[in-house]
């Protein structure tokens, strides 16, 4: 059975989704339990797989017993194993933390909601694990369609329209990717990544392959909301229901960023990406632009959730820039930042969802006095904020460390400046909120005591609070152990890929 882990990892939540939707017509209350089960098992499996990969190295699983390139294969190396763990963790923790809200908010269609939730996770897991270009497209569509509909369940005034825009952009992205794959297929006759990787080198100078690469890349970049193509992202994530936001916002963009790195390393080769098409400088500068613009646009927002979505845009800039600088250090920084960013974005959105319980809206003004009212929740919010700023020992600092180090090695001083600049802007962004939440009292001491009395502590319910606190702690631990993350998991694969 353990041999089948790679398949089960994806198919257990799949089956669970079907069962849940079927049962939701008969017995609604059992849905949550099954959903939890359907996410706990994959979590366990993904951890087991990570261990296995670290011990035995690369795993290749042939579905249906057909060898690639004829059949479809799953390729697991340490990096995507750790990404899988991150995905399952976030999905599970988020479900636990937001279950209460889901149950109340979607009571009459919770079956459908859970089903789509699980299928979204299935899509992401498949995308990360698969070794087949076309299979990736199908799974991408699963993740997208579920994503569209989860997002559309939010604020009835705005969510459907922003979701529909997402549909258009997303479809363009997917179609571009599909076109690219078609071009690869017509030139090589294969769809299996490893096989294509072998077949391509003689074709590196054919314009068809270059165009194929460009189209795959642009498609993926649309999906990950890279700067000029990010227009769908802010609305979609701002108006989504908070349980969906805290699931989709951390995962979707980062997984697509991982796909980009996968394409660059294991479908095409760094040799092709960095030397045959000499675009790496241009892309890094674009990434710089993405970071700055994201930060500036975030600066212009008064709505905290919207601000965070723009921060995502600039974080994506970090990853793309790191990946395109083109040396092992920066690449490892990018991969590490994918993992860290999943965690910190998750933590910040989850805590925001919890905060929203006790505020009227997401405007900064609504945050006043929160440190007194919900100290622990705010503490987690602060931790995630500091991590996004990049204050040690939170994890955000360390990915920045490697990114900057890589930029120094690669001589991209513009990228360094931009990284530091965005950190400084993030300080402003977050301390704006912290101040609002911290400084509540009018002047004199006499009023202080009254002020304290006026705001009673109304902390978040434990079912949400405990996962939240654990996530915040996880942020710090990931930071502290990032050294071993790099040394054991990321660096070997990356440097093997880049050589």
């Amino acid at each position: 059975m353990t041999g089948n882990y790679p398949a089960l990892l994806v198919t257990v939540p799949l089956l669970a989704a079907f069962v849940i939707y079927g049962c939701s017509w008969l017995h609604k209350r059992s849905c949550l339990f099954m959903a939890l089960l359907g996410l706990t098992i994959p979590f366990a499996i993904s951890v087991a797989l990570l261990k296995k990969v670290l011990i035995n190295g690369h795993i290749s699983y042939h579905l249906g017993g057909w060898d690639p390139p004829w059949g479809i294969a799953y390729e697991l190396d340490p990096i995507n194993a750790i990404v899988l763990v991150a995905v399952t963790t976030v999905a599970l923790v988020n479900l636990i933390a937001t279950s209460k809200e889901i149950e109340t908010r979607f009571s009459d269609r919770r079956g459908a909601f859970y089903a789509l939730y699980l299928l979204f996770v299935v899509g992401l897991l498949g995308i990360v694990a698969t070794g087949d270009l076309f299979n990736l497209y199908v799974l991408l569509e699963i993740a997208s369609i579920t994503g569209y509909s989860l997002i559309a369940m939010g604020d009835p005034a705005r969510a459907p329209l922003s979701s529909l825009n997402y549909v258009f952009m997303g479809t363009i992205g997917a179609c571009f990717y599909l076109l690219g794959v078609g071009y690869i297929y017509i030139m090589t006759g294969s769809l299996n990544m490893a096989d294509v990787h072998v077949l391509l080198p003689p074709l590196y100078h054919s314009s068809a392959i270059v165009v194929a690469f460009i189209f795959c890349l642009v498609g993926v970049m649309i999906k990950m909301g890279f700067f000029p193509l990010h227009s769908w992202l802010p609305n979609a994530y701002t108006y989504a229901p908070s349980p969906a936001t805290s699931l989709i916002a951390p995962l979707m963009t980062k997984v697509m960023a991982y796909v980009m790195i996968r394409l660059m390393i294991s479908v095409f080769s760094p040799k092709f990406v960095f030397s045959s098409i000499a675009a790496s400088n241009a892309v890094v500068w674009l990434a710089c632009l993405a970071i700055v613009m994201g930060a500036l646009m975030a600066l212009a927002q008064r709505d905290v959730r919207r601000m965070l979505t723009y921060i995502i845009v600039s974080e994506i800039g970090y990853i793309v820039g790191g990946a395109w600088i083109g040396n092992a250090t920066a690449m490892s920084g990018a991969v590490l930042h994918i993992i860290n960013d999943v965690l910190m974005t998750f933590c910040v959105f989850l805590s925001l969802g919890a905060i929203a319980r006790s505020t009227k809206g997401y405007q900064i003004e609504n945050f006043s006095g929160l440190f007194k009212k919900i100290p622990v929740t705010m503490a987690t919010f602060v931790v995630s904020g500091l991590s996004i700023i990049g204050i040690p020992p939170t994890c955000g600092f360390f990915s920045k460390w490697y990114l900057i180090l890589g930029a120094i090695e690669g001589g991209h001083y513009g990228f360094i400046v931009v990284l530091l600049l965005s950190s400084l802007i993030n300080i402003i962004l977050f301390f704006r909120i912290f101040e609002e939440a911290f400084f509540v009292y009018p002047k004199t001491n006499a009023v202080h005591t009254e002020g304290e009395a006026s705001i009673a502590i109304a902390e978040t319910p434990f079912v949400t609070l405990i996962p939240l606190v654990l996530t915040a702690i996880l942020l710090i631990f990931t930071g502290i152990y990032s050294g071993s993350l790099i040394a054991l998991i990321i660096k070997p694969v990356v440097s093997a890929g880049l050589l």
Partner: protein
Amino acid sequence: METIHSIRPLLAILASLFAIPFIVGFSRRPAMREFWTFAAAGSKFLIIVSMLPLVLTGRRVTCTIFEIIPGVPLQLTVDTLGLLFALVSSSLWILTSIYSVGYMRGLGEHSQTRYFCFFAVALSATIGVAFSANLLTLYIFYEILSLATYPLVTHHQDEEARSSGRRYLAYILGSSIGLFLPAMLISYHLAGTLTFSASGFLGASISRKVLMILLIMFIFGAAKAAVMPLHAWLPAAMVAPTPVSALLHAVAVVKVGVFVIIRIITGVFGVNLLKSLSLTTPVIVLACITILCGSLIALSQDNLKRLLAYSTISQLSYIVLGVSLLSQRGLTGAFIHIPMHAFGKITLFFCAGAIFVATGKKNISEMKGLGRQMPITMAAFFIASLSIIGLPPCGGFLSKWNLVLGSIEAHRPLVLVVLLVSSLLNAGYFMPVVYKAFFFKTESAVAGVKEAPLCCLIPLCLTAIFSIIFLFYPQPFYELISHALKCIIGAGV
């Protein structure tokens, strides 16, 4: 030099963190809460003292927590210099806790629990900086300190606190992220390591220009040292409750700043490298400017705490100056100025606080004739100001003396002049206060005020007395410093 592996440094850091849960737990019962603060402070001090004999016998205590970045472990090392600093700050924490009890209760401040918690965190971070074995560890604790101090600075949570809190963050975080971090990364890129070594880890292979740029980035990156033009946060931070200003802005935070600079010069670049390339001239110039300007601005201050802040700014640059002289005497002066100034300045702050508690007065002009109402306080103030000016019978004299000799040793007569002029200026802004207090007739406003509560009074007397004692028994300091110098200078010889 042999090294002992022990978790004592870690314990020293964690001691105050352990106390936090209890402090929070007993937030409803102040007595217990403060008991835990004392427990933390005492245990911290004892642990640090317990490492004294080891270090004095020429060994160093290290504690590697784990590899945080390949080649750069999260590591603590206790050497004489760090121990000196740790001793000063931890011993003063005890006194400050006593004082804060009196002060905070005296003024009925709000949310004291939060206050004590972050105070504990700040102290842990300070000790962490003192003991960190490499630049990254140091940076981590430095940042933690910056953030832990923010709620203390903005304790009053009013508009004024908000604006000065902003300024504080802007200067401290901005400089550390904008300058210190890249400088650290570049040196890591160049040297491949960040661990301090007595001869510095930045080899001479690096071009002079790069080294110069790095040095400047580091000096300004450590904005806690308040070297001009990055000093403006310190006067702003004076909105904090006085105990905070006393411990953090006279001892812990600002001294962390200069301590970082000392580490940079002695541990990262290495004295001999700097001497051979004579890189520190700009630093000396900056320090001199800061000394003079700080004193001059202090002359014009009427608010006592702001005056003290500016005097702190100029005094800190003494240390920076002494280190950047790179001469044996100069270093001695710099190192010994750490405890001397610490005790002197904290006394002054204590006095200011005591006056505020007793009379509610912040401005010097309102303190005429206060000496009759509060003789003890003003006496302590007088002694401390002597120590800062650098006159016997106070410890400050020693540091001044050594600095002066150091400047001669380094053949920099101008520095000598600066030192002497600044001493005059110091006298110029301290003496009027004392004079007004004792020789003016009592104003009706302050008529009939009594001394501040005992909790406030005792610590300031103690510190004042200590700053006298140090003149006559400087041996322990000298011993530590001589060890330190053996490593720093001796390594090159």
